[in-house]
């Protein structure tokens, strides 16, 4: 992948300006296209999720550190931010509301200075277990100190306080969205810039070959430690934005399930490319807000998607996109569209059959009082009817068989195309 397959104009890298310009444009235009209040809250949450997933990926993707306790840093940032916001509200601290997330970020970074030293002593599997332990420690403590964490009810606040420059109060969601968008853009740019610093490069080296890094004379722990603090800073900013957005912070934000969600969606988005976690953050909000609305079995679907992703596409969605872009750059993508269509249609039908069965089982277990009838995508199903079950099973098996046929054809084609690409690349190198 080391080959450079984009155009570069010196002294300005046009491709990069286009990508970042498009990103900024999307952030700016999105709330004008989706104008409902649900869309605005979701877009705000997506910005927050993008920052936290990118900061998580500084550990997972760039540093090879599989953390199970990232929610500690985003959550502590949220708690500090909401306390700062309350102090601002009481008139103690003259900080403008727009800078409160930075206070959260600094608090998280301070926490990372404290806890990160122990955490980053090890890499790989021990690192994962230590972060898990520290995450549990903080979560358990959150119920022990109700003065700071607010106990079961959490800490609530009001974001319409302090100075109001240009009449911006952050009261309406759209104003807050634009604050979040600015933060998202700035944090994304900064985190991307981090990957290009010597420290960011060293972090990649620590991930790939720690022995060699030691041998060259760098301290692997120090590299991990500093990166960990920087990642915590950005996580804290996202926590601070979340505190502004929801105006309440409960101890759930430092919990293990939250950390697990960051891991899951960063991975699903793709940890191997910088833009992967952005997709992951968007997916996270879609899943938590929309999918959970549609079906009770959403965690099961999520777990299954994750499992298949780990098994068949360990690079996440980002790597799938990049592979197809590579095929497209060699002009072979149009040969695949029939196969893709067949794959998608059969996979969709198989999923539909499986989902019908899962929904029926969930209905039997959880809504037994409502009787055996349920609506699934507008189709009435009878969860206790033999013919419904037979239909669903038959439907799914047929679709799976067709999918298998399509998959075999596709994998043959895919293999051929990649052979061609390899040859073509060798030929170009020889030129």
């Amino acid at each position, binding site marked *: 992948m080391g080959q450079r397959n984009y155009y570069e104009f010196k002294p300005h890298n046009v491709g990069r300006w286009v990508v970042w310009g498009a990103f900024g444009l999307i952030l700016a235009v999105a709330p004008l296209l989706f104008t409902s209040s649900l869309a605005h809250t979701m877009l705000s949450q997506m910005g927050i999720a993008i920052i936290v997933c990118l900061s998580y990926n500084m550990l997972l993707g760039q540093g090879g550190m599989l953390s199970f306790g990232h929610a500690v840093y985003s959550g502590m940032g949220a708690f500090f931010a909401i306390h700062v916001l309350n102090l601002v509200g009481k008139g103690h601290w003259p900080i403008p509301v727009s800078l409160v997330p930075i206070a959260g970020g600094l608090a998280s970074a301070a926490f990372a200075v404290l806890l990160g030293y122990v955490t980053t002593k090890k890499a790989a599997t021990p690192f994962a277990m230590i972060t898990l332990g520290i995450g549990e420690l903080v979560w358990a403590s959150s119920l022990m100190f109700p003065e700071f964490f607010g106990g079961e009810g959490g800490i609530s606040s009001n974001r319409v306080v302090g100075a109001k420059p240009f009449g911006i109060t952050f009261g309406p969601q759209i104003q807050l969205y634009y604050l979040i968008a600015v933060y998202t853009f700035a944090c994304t740019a900064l985190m991307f810039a981090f990957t290009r610093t010597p420290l960011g490069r060293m972090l990649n080296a620590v991930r790939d070959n720690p022995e060699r890094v030691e041998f060259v004379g760098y301290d692997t722990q120090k590299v991990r430690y500093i990166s960990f603090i920087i990642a915590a800073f950005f996580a804290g900013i996202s926590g601070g934005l979340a505190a502004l957005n929801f105006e309440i912070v409960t101890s759930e934000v430092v919990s293990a399930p939250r950390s697990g969600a960051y891991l899951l969606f960063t991975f699903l988005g793709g940890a191997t490319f910088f833009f992967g976690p952005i997709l992951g953050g968007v997916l996270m909000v879609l899943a938590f807000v929309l999918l959970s609305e549609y079906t009770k079995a959403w965690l099961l679907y999520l777990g299954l998607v994750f499992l298949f992703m*780990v*098994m068949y596409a360990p690079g996440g969605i980002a790597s799938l996109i990049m592979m197809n872009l590579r095929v497209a750059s060699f002009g072979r993508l149009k040969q695949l569209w029939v196969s893709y269509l067949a794959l998608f249609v059969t996979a969709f039908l198989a999923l539909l059959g499986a989902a019908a069965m899962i929904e029926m089982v969930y209905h039997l277990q959880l809504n037994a009082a409502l009787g055996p009838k349920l609506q699934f995508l507008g189709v009435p199903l009878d969860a206790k009817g033999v013919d419904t079950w037979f239909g669903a099973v038959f439907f799914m098996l047929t679709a799976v068989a067709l999918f298998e046929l399509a998959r075999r054809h596709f994998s043959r084609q895919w293999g051929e195309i990649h052979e061609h690409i390899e040859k073509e690349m060798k030929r170009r190198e020889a030129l």
Partner: protein
Amino acid sequence: MEFFTISLLNGISYGLLLFMLSSGLTLIFSMMGVLNFAHASFYMLGAYFAYTTTQWFGYWPALVIAPLLVAGLGALFEKYALRRVHKYGHVAELLLTFGLSFIILEMVQLVWGTSSVDYRVPAALSGPLFTLYGTQFPMYRGFMMLVALLMLLAMWLLLTRTRIGLVIQAALTHPDTVEALGHNVPRVFMLVFGGGCALAALAGVIGGNAFVTEPGMAATVGSVIFVVVVVGGMGSLAGAFVASLAIGVIQTFAVGIDRSLLDAAQVVGLAITPETFGYALWKLKISQVAPILPYVFLVLILIFRPKGLLGTREG
């Protein structure tokens, strides 16, 4: 004295249960390098399977059937999923088991519901075993200790005194040589993974009715057994034994002590009022601190002895 003896006994029986759980995890980790994140989920599956089997056949068959079923599931998972991602490295394996823990949790809620099930201690074991200082020690706790010790003995004999144990130990360090000698190393791994899951399930069978069988039970013990494995030393069975006993005893004692630093300060003669700096810390009772003690223990071990109590290698 009464408090001390009863707490010690309770602590040891809880510690032995933790050991049953962490021994499977340690075994899998030291043999295959896979940190099984779904281990506590297999514990939960063991308890639920035992609950259903008990309704059909009674408790004693369940003690055998449930672990065997879970072993089968674990072996299938190893064969069809874990083996596939082996080439991507340990992080992918860890993530796969992490995903599995989600799925098992959802499946359990799907089949048995979201509230706890009525899984009880069998009538034959429900009385008191003996009475100490007027407090009765339940027979079931004694049974838990007995099963854990028997399991420890059986595992030790299996690993050191039998042919299959020798093959397992050899496959650990020299998989290629063992393969060249005609042993099926992937199958050995499958057996080890299934066996580890069976140990977790056995702990579930005897722990599920002593505590409570509900979908949150995996999360309750899940992180504690990881602490046990780290504190004991990654991959050391003896270390896991010591660490689980220590954590079991410490936690049980802490739960029973209703004192705080405030009381200690009063004994010394320090006056501490709600205005004193850090009052929240001073008034914290030891029993309130009990849930975080294992993790404090973990952090301390990492600072002062990073390889764990009986570990031999730095992770």
